């Protein structure tokens, strides 16, 4: 039930931000749309257990996002430097890291976080092993330390 409430909240804010009109007619269109989407999602729920996967309920999420922004900025500067330095500055590697998360949502978040930071891309996910391609061995070493993995797992706990 709380999941549906959160979903309604997300959909409603999405509608309001996209339309920006507060006339009764348009608001009622919004309400109808949300009801239809919820109904459709509820039907799909019988096939798929994760119909509402958007929300990973954790109080630490804002802190994680902030940390991610810092990581993205740092790795962007690093990759940009390597681009200007040319081919000699890169040493591509492929390696695997273990994902310690239990739920699928958290694993997706971890894999996507890896992909989102320039310099590392997740190639495949099998059970709890992620295959990662890194632009430089430094970026690979950085990821192998497992700080990102720890932080995502901590999101699950809280």
């Amino acid at each position, binding site marked *: 039930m709380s999941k549906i409430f959160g979903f309604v909240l997300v959909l409603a804010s999405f509608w309001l931000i996209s339309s*920006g009109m507060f006339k009764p007619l348009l608001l009622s269109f919004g309400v109808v749309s949300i009801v239809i989407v919820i109904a459709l999602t509820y039907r799909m729920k019988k096939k798929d257990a994760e119909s509402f996967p958007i929300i990973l309920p954790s109080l630490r999420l804002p802190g994680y996002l902030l940390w991610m922004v810092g990581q*993205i900025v740092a790795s962007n500067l690093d990759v*940009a430097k390597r681009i200007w330095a040319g*081919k000699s500055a890169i040493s*591509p590697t492929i390696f695997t890291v273990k994902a310690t998360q239990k739920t699928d949502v958290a694993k997706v978040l971890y894999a996507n976080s890896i*992909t*989102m930071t320039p310099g590392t*891309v997740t*190639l495949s996910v099998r059970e709890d092993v992620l295959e990662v391609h890194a632009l430089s061995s430094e970026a690979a070493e950085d990821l192998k330390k497992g700080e990102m993995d720890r932080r995502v797992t901590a999101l699950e706990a809280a």
Partner: protein
Amino acid sequence: MDLVLDILSWIFIVAGGFFGITGAIGLFRFPDFYSRLHAASITDTFSVGLIILGLVLQSSSVLMVLKLLLLLLLFAYTGPTAAHALAKSARQAKLEPLLGDQTDKKGEAP
């Protein structure tokens, strides 16, 4: 105050443009598919982020700011998804990545 905001927003937008160009140059400069993917991801994280931040400082209403942030969220979802889809299908098609130190391989065909 307006002048300060304008200067700040222009710094962000110009920096975003610079990183966009950097990503494009990396796309041509790097030797193989996988390393080019990394160059492209500069464009859809940092470049987009900086340009949107610059535009946020220019916008006149809260609604516009929220719309811009929504756009940033869209990029945050689609960027990694597209990058992963490309990388995974390349891997499954058995496209061999170029590995190791690239220092001594100048002029070699990728």
